[in-house]
């Protein structure tokens, strides 16, 4: 009788919180591995060097990057044989701080994955409150206090204008309209712990499909209706500024 109660108690305790789990019968218990993502922030083929007036974009503007931060969120890994794994994650990448550029996405089944999607920015569901922790803590400086919401992408630096003068460059991209989903082909086999390297090319964020010329677009803070065209250009540019490098 005592044993019965103990078992009953144990069952109650363990079933109480169970989410639905899918048990694939007939297949051997899959092994799994942890996946890290490492972001390589680059300008063209060069590793990013902070605060150096050395880059030229497609419009021919010479410019620098004194600050570069962006949010990656909601990672989805797509299995080659179909099906995906969704991970709710909100990760702030700060190009000047390498420790923020590698992060764990979680544990994945041993399998072959052929593409990854992630959000650039914060989805609507999480973008409208500041009472959040971790990388969404508003003291990270990526939050607008006068218009509740996160700055998805922040680039501050300088550029040389048409008259050869040094001018400030301020790009603060945000609002729900700016949220984009990036999808990349990858070549990932999980059969143990893995690190996947992805590249972000800052020049590409100003280039394709829309060329952004700093002489006309140099101070956008997503705060006026005049910023709308720039928001939509940046959104499409950013969604193909990322690429897969390698897995190790």
């Amino acid at each position, binding site marked *: *009788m*005592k044993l019965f*109660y*103990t078992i*009953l*108690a144990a069952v*109650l*305790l363990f079933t*109480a*919180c169970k989410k639905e789990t899918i048990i694939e019968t007939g297949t051997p218990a899959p092994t799994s591995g942890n996946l890290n993502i490492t972001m390589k922030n680059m300008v063209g083929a060069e590793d990013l060097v902070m605060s150096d007036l050395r880059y030229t974009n497609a419009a021919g503007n010479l410019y620098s990057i004194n600050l570069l931060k962006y949010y990656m969120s909601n990672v989805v890994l797509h299995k080659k044989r179909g099906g995906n794994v969704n991970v709710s994650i909100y990760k702030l990448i700060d190009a000047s701080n390498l420790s923020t550029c590698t992060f764990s996405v979680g544990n994945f089944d041993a399998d072959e994955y052929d593409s990854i999607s992630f959000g650039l920015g914060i989805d609507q569901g999480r973008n*409208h*409150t*500041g*009472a*959040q*922790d971790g990388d969404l*803590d*508003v*003291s990270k400086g990526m*939050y*607008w*206090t*006068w*218009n*509740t*919401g996160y700055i998805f992408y922040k680039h501050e630096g300088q550029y040389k204008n048409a008259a050869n003068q040094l001018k400030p460059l301020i790009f603060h991209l945000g*609002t729900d*309209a700016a949220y984009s989903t990036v999808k990349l082909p990858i070549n990932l086999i999980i059969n143990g712990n893995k690190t996947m390297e992805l590249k972000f090319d800052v020049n590409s964020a100003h280039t394709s499909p829309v060329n952004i010329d700093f002489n006309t677009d140099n101070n956008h803070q*997503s*705060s*006026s*209706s005049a*910023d*709308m065209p720039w928001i939509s250009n940046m959104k499409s540019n950013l969604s193909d500024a990322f690429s897969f490098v390698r897995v190790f």
Partner: protein
Amino acid sequence: MRSKSFKFLLYCVLPLAFFACKKENTSAVEDKGLTPYNLVIPNGFPAMMIPSDNPMTVEGVALGKLLFHDPILSGNNTQSCASCHLRKFGFSDSSNQFSTGIQGLKGPRNAMPLINLGWATQFFWDGGAANLESQVVGPIQNPLEMHQDLVAALVELNAHPTYPALFKKVFGGTQIGTSMLMRAIAQYERTLISGNSRYDQFKRGTTTLSQSEMRGMNLFQNPNKGDCAHCHTMGGLFSDFDYRNTGLDSIAVDKGRELITLKPLDRGKFKTPILRNIEVTGPYMHDGRFKTLEECVQHYNVGYHYTQNLDPNLVNSVKGRLNNAEVQDIVAFLKTLTDTEFLSAE
């Protein structure tokens, strides 16, 4: 032996099984040794929506009240929220058109009263803050207000002799984080409820209004006269919580709601203010341009500009529809919304 193990199951294990999955709620609050805060909602008011991740507790409200009044949150420790939001003025800023921040700078807008905030859905004149929690860090960081770096504010709080223990009691954790600061102050703000003015007492049948006040109330609601209730809805709240352009300027100086939605159609629109305690919250409008209630009423009577986004209710109104006596009656009615109990509470 058998009955002992049964008792063990009944009293210890079963409750565990039930609590294991519980989200934050009243009993979870009690589990942490906190006392649920009993909000008293005035008759005729709808229920207040409390966010599920910030349940009201006596301890949380007390902590929020302490923080609201503590200059520790400002850059040079000279200014608190209460410096610009004073209870006797309905938690607005005395007679200042524009409040002065810690560096002597003035912002472009009139400090808002903090009354019945728990029923509003967005905050600031343009509704830029999406909830009460999110609003809190605005004034702390604003260079024209308390001008404090959030990281520095948290360092100061974490090094304080008493705050760490108070925060830990309410929110757990080992460090005071920004989200805790936001939640504590929001809890206190939700307790600032005013619903016992002479108007409320009249609605409850415990007092009578004067002839002039009664006429004013009717004019306030009459669509061909004041037509005020169109936006300042009757009942408990006196606001539709929508954004309206009341034609204060022919060319909007402050873009208002457009700053948030980035839509030109929202230019010059501002949140409909709740008119409670309006007698003491002057000067009036988002930029504090009017000193008296007469000026406000006359604005709707004759003053408004036929600007691009002027609210349709005003487009359709007839200018000069109120005579002087009627203006005075509406002002008399507005003053019945003064709640002396609220304004003089501790």
